[in-house]
């Protein structure tokens, strides 16, 4: 049990000249990146909306003032009023909740399942690897959209369905990435010594390999989170996600885009900008993390 990964995994860092200062911690490098700071600020803003939306929103997002239907942005309603008389600003604020709850949970499910699968495939290799590989290949051979669509149509739309479907679709993709990382890791000395010490496969996989492939998994999680938001928003727009009248960006756009031809742009624009700002912010953060990890 003495094969500490840190010592064994460090030969790559040993040749650093003694006179040089130690490289700054990764999170310090992150804080120096403007893209990371901007992205984080926007993300924090939406998370606050997701948690405290009901108290921040100026109006009840469900209340309908029928006389104000389709009225354009004004002092009382800065983002205007939608086709059945609900305050758009309040719906945009409260609408952050479901997408910010569903997407991370779906990504987490896919990451956990994918990591376990990838560790098993990469560590055992041989027949286990081939067998799971074939299944993964078969899943990936089907158009992802179609699989998701069929499943949701069959089971019925709900937030839980979205989490499970997206999580399952991510699983083989993440498993493939983790497997590759484990294969690279498998050539390190510390694993050979762990095996020689007679440690159990479960311990080696989760206590010794996992911490070393964690950076790969973190990057994969953030990248997948972006795709998850994309998928959740799109499926909600198609009517397979959060159902009306619950405030939801994709769902609200679906409910109101029919009136774009009549010139009522405010009913969809602000929700669209909310989605765009969320995914772009996440991308800035992901990009910064990737750069720091790869440097």
């Amino acid at each position: 049990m003495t094969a500490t990964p840190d010592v064994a995994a460090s030969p790559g860092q040993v040749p650093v000249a003694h006179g040089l200062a130690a490289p700054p911690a990764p999170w310090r490098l992150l804080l120096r990146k403007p893209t990371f700071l901007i992205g984080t600020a926007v993300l924090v803003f939406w998370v606050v909306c997701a948690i405290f939306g009901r108290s921040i929103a100026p109006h009840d997002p469900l209340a309908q003032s029928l006389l104000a239907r389709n009225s354009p942005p004004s002092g009382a309603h800065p983002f205007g009023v939608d086709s059945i008389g609900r305050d758009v600003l309040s719906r945009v604020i409260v609408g952050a909740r479901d997408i910010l709850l569903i997407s991370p949970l779906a990504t987490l499910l896919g990451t956990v399942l994918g990591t376990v699968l990838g560790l098993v495939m990469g560590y055992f290799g041989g027949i286990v690897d081939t067998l799971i590989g074939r299944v993964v290949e078969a899943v990936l051979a089907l158009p992802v959209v179609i699989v998701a669509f069929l499943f949701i149509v069959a089971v019925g739309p709900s937030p839980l369905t979205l989490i499970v479907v997206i999580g399952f679709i991510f699983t083989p993709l993440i498993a493939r990435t983790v497997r590759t990382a484990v294969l690279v890791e498998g050539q390190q000395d510390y694993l050979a010594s762990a095996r020689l010490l007679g440690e159990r496969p479960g311990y080696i996989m989760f206590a010794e390999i996992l911490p070393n492939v964690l950076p790969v998994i973190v990057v994969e999680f953030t990248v997948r989170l972006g795709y998850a938001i994309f998928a959740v928003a799109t499926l909600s727009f198609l009517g397979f996600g959060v159902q009306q009248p619950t405030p939801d960006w994709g769902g609200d756009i679906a409910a109101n885009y029919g009136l774009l031809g009549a010139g009522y742009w405010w009913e969809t624009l602000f929700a669209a900008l909310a989605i765009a700002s969320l995914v772009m912010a996440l991308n800035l953060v992901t990009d910064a993390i990737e750069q720091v990890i790869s440097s």
Partner: protein
Amino acid sequence: MTRYLLRRIGLAIATLWILSVIVFFAGQVLPGDPGRAVLGPFASRIAVRSFDHQIGVDRPLVTQYLSWVGGLLHGNMGISYSFRTPVEPIIVTALGNSAKLAALALVIIIPLGIAGGVLAALYTGRAIDRTISLSGLAASTVPEFVSGIVVIIVFGVALKILPYPTGSLAGLSVPSQLDHLILPVIPLVLVLFGYIARMARAGTIEALDSDYARTAVLKGLPRSVVIRRHILRNSLLPTITVIATQTGYLIGGLVVVEQLFNYQGIGRQILSAASSKDFPMLEAGILTIGIVYMVATLIADVLYTVLNPRLRVGVSG
């Protein structure tokens, strides 16, 4: 090579078969029964039952599956529950409409994406590279319906220079059809740009680092000639084949864009079939998309293998 090809085709057929099973049985699990969905909530129970009997959904599942597959093999996709007419003509028209949209998107995105990627590669690490890479990444992560809403509001509602909604193109002249297709194409182009540019950039950087590129530079060829003759030729073909692997995303994008722009393509057809529980239409539509997808990925794989001799398996065996 022949052996590899046969194996790939075999795999594609097997996948299609699995898809047909999934499609069929997923269709069966759909809540609600077709008779009720078609005849409405006020139809009598007897009428619903006799409708179900007439269309054959009261038979055992396996019998239904076999007769469905048997029909498909004879080119018979069944009768639509909602339209009471054969499914094929509707699917064929819708597929044609989707193909127009997809073709226009590809015609725009392939040169644009490659140009962006090559430009980024030639200026690796500089501002141009960062701008192209980052904006490509940002564009590819914004859902199609979101960018769609924005372009509709800007060009269709505020400036009123492009028609919205797209609707049906039937009876329109070719220039007018193009005019109608520009708005729905933009979201598709935005989503694909980042990926294609990234691929072209990686391919070009690899070619720039190669020995033959260095040799060409060292023997005194001008930079523009090296780029045109040595770099582009080696980096572009693999990039183009990689594009075919994006068919899945393109199909997903089509479903969304057709819905948003009220365009009568196959994606919209499938969505409306799903909501009205029109099984034959739903199954035929999804299987059609599956076939298109299989063929596209098959072509991509084969092209990729042909162009990369290193990846060719089964040459010796």
